[in-house]
């Protein structure tokens, strides 16, 4: 019993410290693979020592020091190392640092935070999107390869290979372990945002997979977004992203029923949305908005906030939502954003206005196979009383739907049109 709880405490500590310690090990060794290996060895040592002797005063310093010693052992053992000048130099500097730290009693707060460098390396655009996501979860989130594989529905072997390949490329192509300079920062930070957002969406989408693991991905994405806000307090969009994720997450459990069926926003039980997350999300958004003109994540968070604060579908400030979608269109000029703007406009100013706006998108044809477009069109025709056009759009929407509950709903509406 006692051992169980110790193991759990160790697990918690490790989870908190993993990214923190690993990022420093990478900056010492300049080798992600080596850093991860020795970190793993340090964890095994922690499990052996902390149980009987208790958790050290500074687990971070303990883990770092142990891992560093393991790295030194490894480099010494390496048969080829005498031929490699760079590795020899690395060993010397590691030994110096280790010697330095033995004489002083280092505490957690003395250890620098290098995680931002690690984030930018893991989210480097020279890596594939899948690799960026996996690497970020592995190195910063401390998820195991098996956990990541399960969340993305691939075998552990496949995921392990993806991680190894990515780490190899970082090393051989010399992808920098650094925060990009001012000329690159704006572009690179977008890649970081998108990795975190994709991790969240992977958990949010209810398409398939183990639901528990998927909820973990949402939690992990929020944790990463929080970390990013702490590391980049001047970047308003980082706060925008965190706010957006919190507001999305406040509705996550209400998006599906007991059978896992999707529930549309209009039919959700608003009293069961997570109030704490809404309050926090709105507070973060407000603080971000005063920092300057809002970027796309802040705008999307604002849209989500208007929904979150509305007492009902009818009481929603649709006028504001329509304006926010128009603003979002400046950053994301896509038909999907236009579609959302048109739907919001229809609730603010009537279905005729919405149809008027939609007719522009109909002409360009990019949404022909996009199911929500036909469903929205059908609803607008129903609301203006054009049964014939509504029926045609419902049929189209039904044929494109792959969700049983949604299909049933649309078929019910289609039958109403025949009356």
């Amino acid at each position: 019993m006692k051992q169980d709880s110790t193991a759990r405490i160790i697990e918690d500590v490790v989870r908190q410290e993993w990214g923190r310690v690993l990022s420093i090990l990478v900056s010492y060794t300049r080798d992600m693979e080596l850093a991860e290996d020795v970190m793993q060895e340090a964890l095994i040592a922690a499990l052996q020592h902390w149980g009987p002797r208790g958790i050290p005063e500074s687990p971070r310093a303990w883990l770092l020091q142990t891992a560093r010693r393991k790295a030194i052992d490894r480099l010494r053992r390496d048969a080829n190392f005498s031929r490699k000048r760079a590795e020899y130099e690395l060993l010397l500097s590691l030994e110096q640092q280790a010697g330095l730290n033995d004489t002083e009693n280092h505490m957690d707060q003395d250890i620098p935070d290098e995680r931002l460098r690690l984030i930018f390396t893991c989210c480097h655009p020279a890596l594939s999107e899948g690799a960026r996501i996996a690497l970020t979860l592995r190195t910063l989130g401390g998820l195991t390869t098996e956990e990541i594989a399960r969340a993305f529905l691939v075998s552990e072997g496949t995921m392990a290979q993806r991680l190894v390949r990515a780490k190899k490329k970082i090393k051989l192509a010399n992808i920098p372990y650094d925060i990009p300079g001012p000329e690159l920062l704006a572009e690179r930070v977008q890649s970081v945002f998108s990795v975190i957002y994709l991790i969240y969406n992977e958990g949010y989408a209810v398409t398939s997979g183990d639901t528990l693991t998927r909820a973990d991905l949402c939690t992990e994405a929020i944790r990463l977004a929080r970390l990013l806000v702490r590391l980049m307090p001047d970047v308003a969009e980082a706060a925008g992203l965190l706010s957006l994720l919190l507001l999305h997450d406040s509705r996550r459990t209400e998006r599906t029923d007991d059978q896992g069926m999707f529930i549309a926003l209009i039919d959700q039980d608003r009293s069961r949305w997570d109030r704490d997350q809404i309050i926090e999300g709105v507070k973060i958004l407000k603080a971000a908005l005063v920092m300057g003109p809002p970027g796309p994540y802040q705008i999307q968070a604002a849209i989500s906030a208007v929904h979150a604060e509305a007492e009902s579908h009818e009481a929603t400030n649709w006028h504001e939502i329509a304006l926010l979608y128009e603003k979002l269109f400046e950053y994301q000029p896509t038909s999907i954003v236009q579609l959302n703007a048109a739907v919001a406009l229809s609730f603010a100013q009537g279905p005729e206005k919405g149809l008027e706006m939609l007719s522009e998108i109909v002409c360009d044809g990019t949404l022909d196979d996009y199911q929500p477009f036909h469903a929205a069109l059908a609803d607008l025709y129903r609301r203006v009383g054009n049964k014939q056009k509504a029926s045609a759009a419902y049929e189209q929407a039904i044929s494109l739907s792959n969700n049983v509950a949604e299909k049933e709903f649309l078929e019910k509406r289609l039958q109403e049109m025949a009356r």
Partner: protein
Amino acid sequence: MQYLLLIYSAEGSGPVYETPEFGKLMEGYMAMTEEAKQNNVFEGGNALQAVETATSVRVRNGKTETIDGPFAETKEQLGGYYLMNCKDLDEALYYASKIPTAEFGTIEVRPVWEL
């Protein structure tokens, strides 16, 4: 660390020889080469003759086969290269993006295997 920047483009996708656009392209090449030299990054680089002049060689069972044409018949062809000594991939990517052909072709950046 050395990187090879391989310049690929489809035939006819770039500006035509002896037009003002072609002059601009050349100026762009000169400017970026100069920048790389100033920063001690430039190690070498050349444009290549068209693929029609390529010859491929392979030795099978001790017998040399000589074939007219490039290794692979692709739409985008290798037209030139730079060898750059950069501090990291970001610096190599910076120079790759400065190569004028990047605006209509593709630059492949490959780290050189260091022994």
